[in-house]
């Protein structure tokens, strides 16, 4: 049965303001977790592996819970998922501070916060944006939300460092738990009226939507490309400081590089979203991935100096999360907005598997070969692969044969 297309239900300003503040908090709070490694492991007498395993589990839980959080958001509304996600977030942060065993730490910092992330970040918020912002402004709006998430990451590292220094690591976590509750009132701004989630166009079941997406070549290509995004970003984020240390760089070089990546990431994500309104998104994605390969190759080829590190950090910053708006906008363009959050969650799962591989393989191959050369080479080759697979993506709406009523 074919139904008339739905009209936007919430104002764009409201959706953008509330969505942007939500992802600023949800993406920002977790971004500085590395700062807790030393104080927590020192106080609790745990190995670094205990801490690192919990963070790895968090990333996987985020990815695995994403499609389910998206499914519930598409079916019952993002508002409910945001409320539950926020409560998980606050509980996870408080329990993270109280955990006295490695298992409890993994349950709180790993599973609970990972699930909270799935319920409060891009996939869920993008569903509301896709349903309430007109298609001609959708990519730009997704760019604004992604830039807000990037800003959160940029902002919260110094804030969390200050909190730990001023209140101690445990109270800092409790304060962040309270701060995460600020998402609750903001979630009301994304509460869509009853009936807003009713399907438009042809009715489709969840199972049919999943089968359709996974059987569609362009979705497979986008998903493969997003794996590379996760691999590159997390490999560089996790292993870059030790790479610089191995090459005799001072610690201030690593922190300045961190700041530059954060700063230019905000600019890059916004620009990618805005550019998505003007040109085919597959070309934007392809350009981002090939430029990443070029930038990494140039960085490795050039003599390593603080300024080459800063230039690398700034250019990689522009390309950091800039894949997020075009990837999600293409999903909405192809499949429509009915299952946007769920399908976005599936694509993001691939990103998280890539993230896990980037962090894990980086360490594994370094252990085997005594240098990062092989992983850098892998990152370059994967960038070329992602650039190529994004080129044939078809951005047009998928053709669905009309179902004749019985």
């Amino acid at each position, binding site marked *: 049965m074919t139904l008339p297309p739905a009209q936007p239900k919430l104002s764009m300003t409201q959706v953008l303001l509330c969505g942007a503040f939500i992802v600023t908090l949800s993406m920002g709070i977790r971004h500085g977790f*590395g700062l807790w*490694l*030393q104080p927590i492991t020192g106080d609790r007498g745990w190995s670094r592996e205990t801490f690192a395993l919990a963070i790895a589990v968090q990333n996987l839980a985020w990815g695995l819970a994403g499609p389910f959080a998206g499914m519930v958001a598409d079916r019952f509304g993002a508002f409910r998922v945001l409320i539950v996600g926020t409560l998980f977030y606050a509980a996870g942060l408080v329990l993270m501070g109280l955990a006295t065993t490695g298992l409890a730490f993994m349950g709180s910092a790993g599973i609970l916060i990972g699930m909270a992330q799935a319920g409060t970040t891009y996939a869920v918020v993008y569903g509301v944006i896709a349903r309430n912002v007109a298609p001609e402004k959708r990519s730009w709006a997704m760019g604004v939300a992604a830039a807000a998430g990037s800003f959160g990451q940029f902002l919260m*590292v*110094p804030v969390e460092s200050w909190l730990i220094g001023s209140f101690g690591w445990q109270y800092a976590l409790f304060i962040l738990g309270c701060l995460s509750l600020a998402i609750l009132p903001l979630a009301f701004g994304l509460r869509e009226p009853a009936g807003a989630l009713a399907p438009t166009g042809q009715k489709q079941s969840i199972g049919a939507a999943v089968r359709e997406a996974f059987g569609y070549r362009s979705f497979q290509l986008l998903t493969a490309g997003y794996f590379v995004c996760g691999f590159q970003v997390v490999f560089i984020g996790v292993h870059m400081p030790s790479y610089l240390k191995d090459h005799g760089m001072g*610690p201030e070089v690593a*922190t300045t590089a961190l700041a530059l990546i954060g700063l230019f990431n905000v600019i890059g994500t916004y620009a990618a979203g805005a550019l998505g309104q003007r040109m085919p998104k597959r070309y934007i994605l392809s350009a981002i991935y090939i430029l990443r390969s070029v930038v990494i190759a140039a960085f490795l080829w050039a003599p390593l100096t603080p300024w080459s590190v800063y230039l690398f950090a700034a250019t990689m910053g522009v390309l950091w999360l800039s894949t997020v708006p075009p990837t999600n906008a293409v999903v909405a363009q192809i499949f429509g907005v009915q299952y946007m959050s769920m399908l976005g969650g599936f694509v993001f799962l691939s990103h998280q598997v890539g993230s896990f591989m980037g962090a894990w393989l980086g360490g594994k191959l370094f252990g085997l070969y005594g240098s990062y050369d092989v992983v850098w080479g892998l990152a370059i080759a994967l960038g070329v692969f992602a650039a190529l697979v994004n080129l044939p993506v078809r951005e047009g709406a998928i053709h669905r044969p009309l179902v004749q009523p019985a």
Partner: protein
Amino acid sequence: MRHRSATPWRRVAAYAAAVLALGAVFAAYLSPHLVMDLATRVWACF
């Protein structure tokens, strides 16, 4: 029409606010105390 495009002064104000916010956070990263604190913690991770 549902969405009106932003007036020029609003757009300029929005960009100015964004630049100010980004500049303020970047300056926070450059404060000597924070650089040392961050560097110690980041370095201790590896």
